[in-house]
């Protein structure tokens, strides 16, 4: 493993290991169990994202670049920020590597679907909120500010 590999691996490990340890629920054994289950499910999502680093250039059978570690770390950070606010109310997202080097996160709510695309490098975000039944666009936007992005998503859960 090169020094660069080691440093970037540490970046991901930091994101994985610092997952929130508790939500607002407390004291009840069932709450603890639910929380642990939720933690495991989101942990599995983090592992999936971390595994994208093994995709070689051209992994999509075309010209897809490798999914860089900064993009992976930012994807995990977005999930963690939502998790800190929503606790076990946050469903695990569907995640997928994009053919342009980004990462797609999708949440399905009862009435709406939220799609977030993290651009290659992890600095640009595009989001789409659409009605599930009709595909009508409720909101679509771009931002470079992770706080704005997380706020737009959080509003959908309230």
């Amino acid at each position: 493993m090169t020094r660069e590999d080691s440093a970037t691996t540490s970046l991901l490990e930091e994101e994985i290991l610092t997952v929130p340890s508790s939500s607002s629920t407390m004291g009840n054994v069932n709450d603890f169990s639910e929380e642990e289950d939720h933690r495991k499910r989101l942990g599995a999502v983090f592992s999936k994202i971390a595994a994208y680093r093994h995709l070689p250039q051209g992994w999509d059978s075309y010209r897809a670049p490798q999914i860089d570690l900064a993009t992976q770390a930012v994807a995990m950070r977005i999930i963690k920020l939502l998790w800190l606010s929503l606790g076990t109310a946050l469903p695990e997202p569907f995640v997928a590597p994009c053919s342009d080097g980004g990462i797609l996160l999708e949440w399905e709510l009862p009435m709406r679907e939220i799609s977030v695309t993290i651009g290659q490098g992890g600095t640009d975000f595009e989001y789409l909120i659409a009605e599930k039944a009709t595909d009508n666009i409720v909101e679509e936007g771009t931002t470079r500010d992770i706080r704005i992005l997380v706020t737009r998503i959080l509003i959908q859960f309230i």
Partner: protein
Amino acid sequence: MRVQEIADADDLYRRIHPLQVRDGRPTSAAFTDPELSVDLAKLTTPQQSLSDYASHGLASIIAGHARSLRQEVFHNPVESNPAHALVKGKKTPSIAKSLARSAKWEVLPPIS
């Protein structure tokens, strides 16, 4: 290699990586490239498009639908693939999603 006109009704093939499939459907993750490579269906076969990529699925989209989303669709033959074409243009999340929603499986990806 002669460059062919692509009619609105023409089908275009796109290979889909299994990681880009959700609930048995292609997702927008497979349609984000601003220069999206596809094969012009009338110049190839699903088997040819998938040769050497047995772990992928193959989906088709219609050229006219891509054009309706402000995408440029044109034949771009290369030596290794005379059927190669491009769907060129910025793919916003709603455009990528619309392309994914319209995609039809020609060959399902193998179940892993």
